[in-house]
């Protein structure tokens, strides 16, 4: 981290005053961002206390009455709530499927792209593959409707022409999950490959030459040189993804859900929105949010710990 050293300049020995006289500008520049972080990131951490208290709109956070069961009332209530259990299950299963299909996709794409010998063609493929990343989830859902609606969607029109009945991709719960995961892969495989392509570019080319001399074919080189070469990157990204296994973005599931699939689509963030922002159950939903943050942090730390134990680089 400390790349900028002071070696070129003589060390200043002086009081706090002379130090500040010289460096006050740096602190002045930092002031605004640090205040921002304090207000928008640290102050909400105080509000987390509401999870352990009875929310009362007329009182400040510290004056509110403690909740029953030593303050754990709302955590207990959450775990007795069928809707929450369902949201938790949906969150974990959708994230797990994302990990299973969405995680390897950019790696495979990067490996394939790396083998393309035509430079301009490769660049064109990349540009096209990055495109879905720039679409919002609302728009992606709008596109999905145009593709998958029974009888009017493009895919179903093609199927109907072939004499096959329409498939209900968006309103059959099981197929909705497939669509959700599929569109997730579609949106992120190209963008995700950027990191892996950079990692591949960093692999020492002598390794490939040596392997060629030893008679290794293309696929052998991919398996024995490229893949091990990008393993550190894969591990770091895997750790980050595991830390997010219980996290739930809001925009993607909320944009893609509809009334027919709520039993598979409603994840924790949607539960919090409906019970908290709309339903006003602030204590309950703060407790749920806290549970989510803490479990996420534990997963991240555990994944990092295991990875370092296995001799890989962690994220710090």
């Amino acid at each position: 981290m400390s790349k900028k050293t002071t070696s070129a300049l003589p060390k200043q020995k002086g009081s706090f005053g002379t130090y500040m006289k010289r460096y006050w500008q740096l602190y002045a520049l930092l002031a605004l961002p640090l205040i921002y972080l304090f207000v928008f990131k640290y102050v909400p951490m105080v509000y987390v206390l509401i999870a352990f208290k009875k929310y009362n709109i007329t009182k400040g956070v510290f004056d509110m009455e403690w909740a029953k069961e030593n303050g754990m009332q709302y955590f207990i209530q959450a775990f007795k709530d069928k809707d929450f259990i369902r949201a938790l299950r949906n969150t974990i299963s959708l994230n797990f499927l994302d990990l299973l299909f969405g995680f390897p996709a950019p790696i495979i794409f990067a490996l394939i792209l790396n083998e393309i010998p035509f430079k301009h063609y490769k660049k064109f493929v990349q540009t096209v593959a990055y495109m879905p990343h720039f679409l919002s989830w609302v728009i992606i859902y709008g596109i999905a409707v145009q593709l998958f609606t029974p009888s009017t969607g493009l895919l179903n029109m093609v199927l109907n022409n072939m004499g096959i009945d329409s498939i209900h991709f968006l309103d059959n719960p099981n197929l909705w999950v497939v669509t959700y995961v599929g569109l997730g892969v579609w949106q992120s495989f190209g963008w995700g490959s950027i990191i892996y392509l950079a990692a591949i570019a960093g692999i020492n080319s002598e390794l490939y030459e040596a392997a060629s001399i030893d008679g290794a074919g293309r696929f052998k080189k991919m398996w024995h040189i490229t893949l091990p070469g990008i393993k550190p990157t894969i591990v770091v990204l895997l750790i980050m993804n595991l830390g997010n296994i219980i996290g739930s973005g809001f925009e993607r599931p909320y944009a893609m859900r509809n009334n027919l699939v709520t039993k598979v689509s409603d994840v924790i963030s949607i539960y919090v929105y409906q019970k908290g922002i709309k339903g006003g159950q602030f204590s309950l939903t703060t407790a749920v949010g806290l549970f989510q943050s803490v479990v996420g942090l534990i997963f991240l730390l555990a994944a990092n710990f295991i990875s370092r134990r296995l001799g890989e680089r962690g994220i710090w």
Partner: protein
Amino acid sequence: MKVKSVSTKLSDWLFVFVCILTIILCLTPMINLLARSLSSTEYLIKHEVYLLPKGWSVSSYKTVLSDVKYIRAFFWTVFLTVVCTVVSLVMTTLCAYPLIFSKLKGRNIINIYITITMFFNAGTIPNYLLMKELNFLDSPLVLIIPSCLSVYNMIIMRSFFYGIPESLQEAAEIDGADYFTTLLKIYVPLSKPVMASLALFYAVGRWNGYYDALMYMKKEVYYPLQLLLYNILNNVNTVEVATQEGFSKPGLAESLKAAIVMFSTVPILCIYPWLQKYFISGVTMGAVKE
């Protein structure tokens, strides 16, 4: 390796073929959308529009363009995106620049203070209550200020600053430049690539985001485009958009929805290919931290 073996050539073509499939997978939905938005209703009702428009008609674009609410939301979002991007870039620079100096006392503590916010999020409700306390609810500021600094982007900028030769900074110092001057005259002009890449990240985030508006904004006047679009596509009755009159007519609804989606996507799709080399370096820098 001048002469390629037959199997290498064969696998070359295999990979090229896989990439063609990828291109088809990415582009077909967009082409279909474009075709629908430009087709006339009679063909859409008969389900005859695939990848080429049939019965050429721009009437749905005309309807969208004459929809005051939609157009207002469009320009409001353009304005918001520009303001957010500028404010965010300034905040990110202010945060990243001082942190590259090891002479900065308390730098480690500040770094820890910043990093903690990346790993622990208080959650939806605490954030909501904060906005309420700050009187930010229903104010346009809520769409700008709360998201004006991403620590992740700050780290990208900081690692870019680390890459700028220290000797430049020392030379400026010997010439009597203070830290403000060094930032403005040396670091900012040399940081165009990272600025372009982060500007794109912030702009795309603002253009595509609707979470904060849904949570904190009840005034329709300030709805960003994506939230309006969400309401239109899901037929939420609270929005009365002129365009929605057309939704009762079969066929026209489809072409209108397609036109609206196209219209909301085109600005970003026109920009990103030109910034490709910048965002690639941005993403890569984010991954290689130290």
